[in-house]
């Protein structure tokens, strides 16, 4: 056995232990530990990927040398390695990109908690990717949920608390359904390890016994994981969650966490139920329908938003729809397209969230359309990041989104009944994406009302925004308890005026750029490069996905 084969296990454990260790460390140290852990696991994933590419097959890793029915197994192949690597990269860049804002948004005494959650999130994602055991998957699904909740409520505003509770409720529902599915599966097959379970399922299908329980299992697990990943009718929790968390948390949650569940679902289909059985059960058609509906509905809701963070969050609903549509095609090509879109959307959405923060900071911390006007001039790098992200979402050639779209479209030809629907859904959804992303994009490069570009406007806007905000709060104050609200209004106007004072100090364009912490600049540039890589050199990645999928089952 090669030493590299231990790496999947190492990476899960490293991430987990760094979380445990961080609980007694200060915020700064926890941050260092967390970043080191992410770097280390990403490097280990790269080794795993290289190893599997060289050997050309996947391998099973027994934990503690207990044989199959009792032991716990890890299984790593090309697809697992690739996913872990890309997740690691996106995670690293999200954490690094939001470093400064995490510092600002999270209370100093709770800094280390934030990084503990990040560590736990990483370890659970890696475990979901690597595990070959359904119950282990369930355990890490729960860890993932808890870490997710922690990340959401870290900024500790009222809204983030309700968002966290909402997320908790929906997620628990999802994991509950998943657990029920597991129990039924255990009941029917007597197995929890994926590979033996698959054999048992194959026997059952051949017998013709337990048809209905099997259908129920597929349905319940699919619905459970669909709730957790935010597929269309269950997307209710997404906008608030992504909208009110800290930037890093939003990027990680939308870019990775929901994708982790989808990865688990794909694994469940390929490795437990068997793709043919899943296709045969028609559950997949339901996923297709809801995926397409999600593409439309998510985009339509995104168009209606005035708050840009919510807009990006609703766009995630649409993008999750794409992925389910790909899975729902029920062909290998569709599955490849779905997996590629997991990567491309992860990279793009994280880029959007991170670069948007830069724009918010240049607009006095406000997130609505009007306030962001002209911010593309005030923070050029963030503007460029948003530009690339938006273009990728719209499917501009040479960026990641185009390849996704292309893969979806070409894979549609393999399933004649769904072909025209898929093609037209793609086209319509592109139009809808263009409507909300490009509307914002034009806004970013429009001068503010006063007709000026760049930082002069910041001053003015910050001041005016502050007044308006204070005025609104004062009006409210009349209705509610006076003293409390006045204090709130005070704080609000202070908060909004602060950037104005800052803006007055810095007068040239370069000064506004300097407001970007260097970590964020690196993150945005790296995300843009990642997007270009996915867009221009997609061939080897798609080939790796194809190979990985072949050794997946």
């Amino acid at each position, binding site marked *: 056995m090669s030493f590299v084969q231990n790496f999947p296990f190492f990476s899960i454990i490293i991430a987990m232990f760094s979380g445990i260790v961080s609980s007694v460390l200060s915020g700064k140290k926890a941050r260092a530990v967390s970043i080191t852990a992410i770097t280390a696991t990403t490097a280990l994933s790269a080794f795993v990927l290289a190893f599997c590419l060289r050997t050309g097959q996947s391998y099973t890793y027994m934990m503690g040398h207990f044989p199959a029915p009792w032991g716990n197994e890890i299984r790593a192949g090309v697809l697992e390695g690739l996913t872990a690597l890309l997740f690691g990269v996106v995670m690293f860049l999200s954490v690094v990109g939001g470093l400064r804002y995490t510092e600002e948004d999270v209370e100093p005494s709770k800094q280390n908690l934030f990084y503990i959650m990040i560590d736990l999130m990483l370890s659970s994602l890696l475990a979901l990717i690597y595990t070959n055991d359904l119950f282990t998957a369930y355990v890490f699904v729960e860890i993932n949920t808890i870490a997710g909740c922690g990340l959401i409520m870290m900024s500790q505003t009222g809204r983030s608390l309700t968002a966290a509770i909402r997320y908790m409720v929906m997620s628990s529902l999802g994991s509950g359904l998943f657990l029920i599915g597991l129990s039924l599966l255990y009941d029917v097959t007597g197995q929890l390890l994926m590979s033996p379970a698959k054999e048992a399922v194959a026997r059952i299908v051949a017998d013709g016994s337990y048809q209905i329980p099997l259908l129920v299992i597929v349905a319940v697990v699919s619905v459970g994981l669909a709730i957790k990943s935010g597929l269309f009718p269950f997307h209710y929790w997404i906008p608030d969650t992504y909208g009110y968390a800290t930037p890093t948390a939003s990027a990680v949650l939308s870019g990775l966490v929901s994708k982790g569940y989808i990865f688990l679902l794909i694994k469940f289909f390929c490795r437990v139920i068997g793709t043919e059985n899943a296709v045969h059960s028609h559950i997949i058609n339901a996923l297709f329908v809801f995926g397409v509906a999600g593409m439309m509905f998510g985009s339509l809701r995104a168009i209606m938003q005035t708050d840009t963070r919510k807009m990006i969050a609703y766009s995630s609903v649409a993008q999750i729809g794409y992925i389910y549509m790909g899975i729902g095609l029920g062909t290998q090509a569709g599955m490849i397209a779905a997996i590629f879109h997991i990567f491309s959307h992860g990279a793009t959405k994280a880029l959007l969230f991170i670069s948007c923060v830069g724009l918010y900071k240049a607009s006095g911390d406000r997130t609505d359309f009007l306030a962001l006007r002209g911010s593309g001039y005030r923070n050029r790098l963030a503007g460029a990041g948003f530009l690339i992200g938006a273009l990728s979402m719209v499917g501009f050639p040479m960026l990641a989104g185009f390849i996704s779209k292309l893969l979806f479209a070409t894979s549609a030809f393999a399933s004649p009944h769904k072909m025209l629907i898929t093609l037209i859904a793609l*086209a319509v959804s592109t139009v809808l994406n263009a409507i909300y992303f490009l509307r914002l994009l034009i806004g970013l490069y429009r001068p503010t009302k006063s007709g000026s570009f760049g930082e002069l406007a910041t001053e003015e806007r910050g001041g005016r925004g502050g007044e308006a905000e204070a005025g609104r709060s004062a009006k409210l104050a009349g209705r509610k308890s006076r003293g409390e609200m006045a204090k709130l209004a005070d704080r609000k106007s202070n908060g909004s005026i602060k950037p104005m004072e800052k803006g007055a100090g810095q007068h040239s364009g370069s000064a506004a750029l300097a407001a970007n912490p260097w970590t964020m600049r690196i993150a945005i540039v790296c995300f843009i490069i990642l997007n270009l890589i996915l867009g*221009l050199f997609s061939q080897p990645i798609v080939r790796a996905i194809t190979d990985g999928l072949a050794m997946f089952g």
Partner: protein
Amino acid sequence: MYDRLLAVPVFLPIVAGVALLAMNGWIRREKRERTMQWLVEALVLINSLLVAWLIAGCGGRSGSLVLFRLYGQLTVMFRMDRMGSFFAGLVAFLWPLATLYAFEYMEHDERRPAFFAFYTISYGVTLGVALAGNLVTMYVFYEMLTFATFPLVMHPMTTEAARATRQYLYYSIGGAAFAFIGLVTVLAYSATGTTGFVPGGMLDPAAAAEHRNLILFVYVLAFFGFGVKAAVFPLHDWLPKAAVAPTPVTALLHAVAVVKSGAFAVLRFTYFSFGTALLRGTWAQWIVMAAALVTITYASTMAVKEVHFKRRLAYSTISNLSYILFGASMMSPLGLAAALIHLLAHAFMKISAFFCAGAVMHHTGKNYIYELDGMGYRMPVTFACFTVSSLSLMGIPLFAGFISKWSLCEAALSLGNEMGGGAGGAVGRVLPYIGVAVILYSALMTGIYMLSVVVRAYFPGVVQQMKEAVGGGSDGKAAVIVSQGKSEANQDPSWLMLLPLVIFAVVIVAVGIHAGPVLRFLALIGGEAG
């Protein structure tokens, strides 16, 4: 050797434009706008000469250059075939002149570097559309064209401009999204597994026969998809709105580069990807033909109603673009040749008309047609050129417009004869003849909407007299205007604006009188692809 250099004219302007954008702040700080402008002009000119040299070098031979692979068989590839060289030559001829014109037009603008940056980038991208060797490359540059030109539409930065830009983006990207379906379908049913342009189509005949109705449906989708930029009827609305952009943009991009790229793309994928053999005589052909005819009728009627000078010209553009699409929808060698000759003629006529409108707006601030009384005396050269282009647009013999309309009618009649045997069903028998009638109707409308401007400009008295005849009171205003116009100093713009105008007028007349060589060359293209 030539093949290797094909990418240069495409990327040189793009790189230069990006460099300009990067140096934007420096240029403005140091007040180097003048130097910058002449450098841009020199670069554009060199690029055009390069294109001319490449066209001369390639002749009809078509070498190809694969730049890189987007994915699988999707390569970004340039090739100079006859049709590509035709469009590239047209663009290369117009761009330096339009840049010259833009110097004077934009002289008081604050954000000139950004303007010229995007203007130059658009040049490269349009050449990319022209030189694209396969459908993918054309799609890529078609999308890039949208993104290179939207900052130009937005240049005035007013609310109106932002609204127009938004609409332009939505329409264009939406169109591209449907064109994408066409692209993927072509890829899926391609005979060679690639999307390279082959005269006469490249779909696998067996697969095409099997999925005939699907492919026809996709063709219609793609027609309207690419047709968005060519402003085909239900999707035309962005073009008149985009008239808020500075005139060099409306003239060059919205009368030539962008819209012609749309029309060119339609021609390309009709004759070089789907193939006319598959489409001729089918319901798909009649649908797209009907769409073109409806557009012609609607837009030429709307142009008469419109009183804003540039918007009227924009409606005229819409109707003329559909002449090209009408030619495209004939699916015959004659149709292709006629479409291309109208593409050429309209480019010169409309850019000339727009430049005149721009000169008037720039020098007198007059935007509406009812303000133009007597302008012909104050800006004699400008309005002489405008008259030439008006007459040509109407289709008066001796001007280029006559040649192209004649070719279109000829092609339609021959198609009608061909379909008369019943090959195209009842619709197919009638539609070409309706097409001829629509062209005649549109010529009448063109006469009304263009000549009403000319008449106002030269005979303000006539307008007054007509009003009197109808019953309006006269106060001798007409005579005042005429005398005013004559007494006032010549307000013609400087040579920067006049040179392009005069050249365009000369070309219009030259093509009108001696069209033989052009027609022969286009017949060659029609013959190989039709």
